[in-house]
């Protein structure tokens, strides 16, 4: 039985990573691919993946290849859990609410050439 996902407060960088998993919840994702898609360097990405995995949002496994035939060791992949997907939806909604500009305020732009 899949354990329930713990609550995590998302930062924008974490949101950029978890969104990739939500695009296809069955798709296993690898470190380099995530770095490229999320635009995060390896040093930022791995701590984020660790937090998600420890919170039960992600699960990881080893790539199913023959290392001798491929000439390289098997990589670690990550996949989002069912409860992780629900938690991610919820937290992304909360984050989006947090950054949403107030609806009642109109954006007033100063005319071009004017000084403040």
């Amino acid at each position, binding site marked *: *039985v*899949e354990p*329930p*996902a*713990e*609550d995590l407060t998302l930062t924008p960088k974490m949101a950029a990573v978890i969104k990739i998993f939500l695009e296809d919840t069955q798709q296993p994702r*690898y*470190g*380099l691919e995530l*770095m490229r898609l999320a635009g995060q*360097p*390896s*040093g*930022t990405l*791995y*701590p984020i993946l*660790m*937090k998600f995995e*420890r919170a039960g949002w992600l699960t990881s496994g*080893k*790539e199913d290849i023959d290392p001798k035939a491929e*000439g*390289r*060791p*098997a*990589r*670690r992949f990550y996949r989002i859990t*069912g*409860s992780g*997907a*629900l*938690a991610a*939806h*919820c*937290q*992304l*909604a*909360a984050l989006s*609410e947090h950054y949403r500009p107030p609806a009642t305020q109109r954006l007033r732009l100063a005319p071009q050439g004017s000084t403040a």
Partner: protein
Amino acid sequence: MTALAWAALGAVAALVMAALGSLINDEIRGWLDLAPRAILRLAATWLDPAQRETIYQDEWLPELCYALRDAESRPITRLIRGTAYATSLLISARRIARTERATRISRTPPQSVATSTEGVGLVHSPNLHSALIARIPAVTSRDLAEWFSRLESGPTFLRREERAHWLAEDAGISCGYAYAIVHEYELRRRLRLRGA
């Protein structure tokens, strides 16, 4: 020395230079791959011995090998890609080690509003749940009473997650808000039954 002898000597010298050039090329290619690996090994020295197995051997090194192999025919790309990957890890290795230790130690059963008998599910902290419930009228343009009556007139489900999924799809709201509505509905219903 005749012109013919000079020409032969020149040809031999050209052959030797070409062979040497090829050898130097191979040598440089070998070193290009070693540089990112050396940086990665250096980064791994910041990890605890136990972490080295799980982080360095299982994750960092296979990913670097894949990156280098992927750009096999492009030595400069390989060098840039491998060095960027390894250098970023070298800079953050101490932080990664700390994060790994912290997440490993602090992993305790979540304090949540969901009960353990409910099996697979999303666990909202009470604070997050309250925050979501408070935002629902503004986000969905409907108050909770309207959502509750929609749940009552909807199909019956055994599990909260199934009901939340149905509500999210039926009403076109995010799963997180749907789950919060269903959860709040169940909480109030339970309270009503206890009070009755």
